[in-house]
């Protein structure tokens, strides 16, 4: 087993991985950019080294520097977390060349899955259902011909694509030529590769993914599914496991498809196969994420399997040691991502110092966070500050606990998406489990779903504003009089001063 692992990441996932190292008795090495010296992941680490200036390109993406730190401190392995270098095949290759184990699949596997056209062809060969469309890069003419044959609506996508870049929806034939041109331009600009392919467009699909684990001895298992249909700007905000409206046989079919996909590319480690499910309940392979997912925790809850520890053991060459037959779904889990954004102001980022931080607790609640009271959220990195995971024996219990946990979760100093989540979990469509990727646009357009303001809450708010104003004025007056005379003075303000000291004392 490894003696020392360098975590090439920051925030909650770095803390999550450090915890796994602690649990395994492995030394954890953190790296930090100049603004992260006081970040939580540094405080949790056994060793910590600066890795450069705040911009990720100069620190958390600085391949050579990170390798050099790993070699200098004698780390056996590097865990990339998610984002940053997690799906960078060249970095994986570099690690192996330098004799440091990269905790994840090989660079070749990442590249094979990174190129969507290649991935689609591989999956098709492996018998995994893909979204109907082309499986090679198309010339303008070929693309136009294909679209006219099948007819709109279709989606033009960049082969090197991801994150919605180089993607164009075609609803009317007149749009074809311009859409192709735009997509190529964006693809070239974003990825330096203008290869395109075309897919049939699926209206309001559901997004369901399968977690897989594969070791170096041909053992490949799946840990069931996660439903990730609650998205905003192609960004997942709420996930749950198991999925809604999922029959046991569909679960098995998707699980087998995901295992087949992983085997088709000789996958190693933890990975996720993302699928779209259309209105008729057909599922289509979308892409494979060759890393740990943000939402891995809900799968850990329902199966009891520690996925990060499994990744480390697999990378160290241990056999998986878990048989598919041992696994069953013993809980229902939900995750809410808490972002430093202002949901009442178009989700504008809200950086700053966290002056009050009280995460929720109690039964059925797990918080994976990367901040603490006094921590500072900067503009440089992903605005997610915490993941709130709740569970129960059944889904309603998990939702009840989520609503309760959100009501306990106090973060002051920055705005967060906690109030937004409180609206989502009260919404009938969510409570019934009948939603798709259109949920937020349909139901959460600003204002919509806003909790009906009770006169009660309003009255209390008015009173507290007055009380807070009064207390502030009073303290100011007290400070003033305290300066004006240092002799004993018996004005109400001074008396208040003494009382408040008494309040501090034992009672």
């Amino acid at each position, binding site marked *: 087993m490894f003696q020392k692992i360098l975590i090439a990441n920051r925030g909650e996932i770095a803390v999550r991985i450090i915890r796994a190292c602690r649990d395994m008795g492995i030394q954890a090495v953190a790296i930090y950019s100049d603004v992260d010296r006081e970040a939580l992941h540094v405080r949790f680490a056994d060793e910590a080294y600066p890795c450069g200036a705040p911009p990720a390109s100069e620190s958390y993406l600085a391949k050579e520097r990170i390798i050099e730190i790993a070699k200098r401190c004698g780390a056996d392995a590097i865990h990339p977390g998610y984002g940053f270098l997690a799906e960078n095949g060249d970095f994986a290759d570099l690690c192996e060349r330098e004799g440091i184990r990269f905790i994840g699949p090989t660079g070749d596997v990442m590249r094979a899955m990174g190129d969507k056209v290649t991935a689609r062809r591989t999956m098709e060969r492996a018998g995994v259902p893909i979204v109907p469309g082309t499986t090679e890069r198309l010339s303008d003419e070929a693309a136009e011909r294909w679209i006219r044959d099948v007819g709109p609506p279709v989606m033009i996508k960049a082969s090197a694509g991801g994150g919605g870049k180089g993607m164009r929806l075609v609803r009317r034939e007149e749009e074809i030529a311009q859409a192709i041109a735009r997509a190529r331009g964006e693809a070239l600009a974003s990825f330096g590769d203008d290869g395109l392919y075309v897919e049939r467009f699926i209206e309001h699909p559901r997004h369901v993914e399968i977690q897989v684990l594969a070791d170096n001895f041909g053992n490949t298992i799946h840990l069931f599914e996660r439903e990730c249909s609650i998205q905003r*700007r192609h960004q997942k905000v709420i996930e749950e496991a198991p999925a809604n409206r999922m029959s046991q046989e569909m679960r098995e079919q998707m699980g087998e498809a995901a295992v087949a996909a992983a085997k088709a590319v000789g996958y190693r480690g933890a990975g996720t196969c993302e699928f779209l499910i259309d209105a008729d309940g057909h599922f289509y392979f979308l892409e494979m994420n060759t890393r740990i997912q943000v939402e891995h925790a809900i799968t850990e809850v329902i199966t009891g399997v520690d996925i990060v520890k499994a990744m480390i053991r697999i990378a160290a060459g241990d056999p998986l040691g878990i048989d598919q037959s041992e696994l069953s779904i013993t809980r229902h889990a939900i995750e809410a991502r808490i972002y*430093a954004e202002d949901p*009442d*102001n*178009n*989700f*504008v*980022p*809200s*950086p700053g110092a966290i*002056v*009050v931080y009280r995460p929720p607790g109690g039964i059925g609640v797990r918080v994976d966070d990367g901040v603490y009271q006094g921590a500072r959220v900067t*503009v*440089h*990195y*992903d*605005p997610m500050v915490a993941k709130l995971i709740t569970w129960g024996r059944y889904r309603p219990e998990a939702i009840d606990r989520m609503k309760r946990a*959100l*009501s306990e979760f*106090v973060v*002051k100093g920055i705005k967060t998406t906690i*109030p937004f989540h*409180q*609206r989502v979990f009260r919404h009938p469509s969510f409570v019934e489990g009948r939603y798709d990727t259109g949920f937020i646009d349909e139901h959460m357009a600003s204002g919509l779903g806003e*909790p009906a*303001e*009770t006169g009660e*809450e*309003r*009255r*209390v*708010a*008015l*009173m*507290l*504003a*007055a*009380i*807070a*104003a*009064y207390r*502030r*004025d009073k303290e100011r007056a007290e400070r003033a009089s305290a300066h004006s005379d240092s002799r004993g003075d018996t004005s109400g303000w001074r008396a*208040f001063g003494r*009382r*408040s000291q008494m*309040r501090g004392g034992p009672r």
Partner: protein
Amino acid sequence: MNYDVSEKKGASVMVGLQEVEEGIYDITIDGETVRVDAAMTGRTIYSVIEEGRQFEVLVDERGAHGFDVLVGARLFHLEAVDERSRLLSQQVRLVAEGPQTVEAEMPGKVVKLEKRAGDPVRGGEGVVIIEAMKMENEIPSPIDGRVVEIAVREGETVETGAKLFEVEPADDEAA
């Protein structure tokens, strides 16, 4: 002591406050007086008990008279002005009805200008786009009216509080 409490752009309510003993207040709203026990439990977190009902209330000061008050899941942006300061604050409000200056709420990079000086603009319509935290954020006009000035250039980096643009209300166009 009396306070005028109002939601931003809302009518104000007169709140009478009498401290009975420390942390215990008689509060009068709409002629009705209730006794309130407001204990501070940690910074900015109040435990409020009114006739047995307990509320955990978070209060953040915002500027001279502003208070953000969170009750349950509901956030209220309030202004509490004591009688003495009321006149002054009214003047402030009048000023606030003239041309509006919009400032950057966070540091970031200006990636796009969607309006030019002189363009008409609707409230909520985007004027500039700023990139921060790996996301593009459209900064909208607070009011219907016309863009008076754009204070930034594309590609420029701005700090918190930097002036972005100025808009004047539609009705001013009559002038």
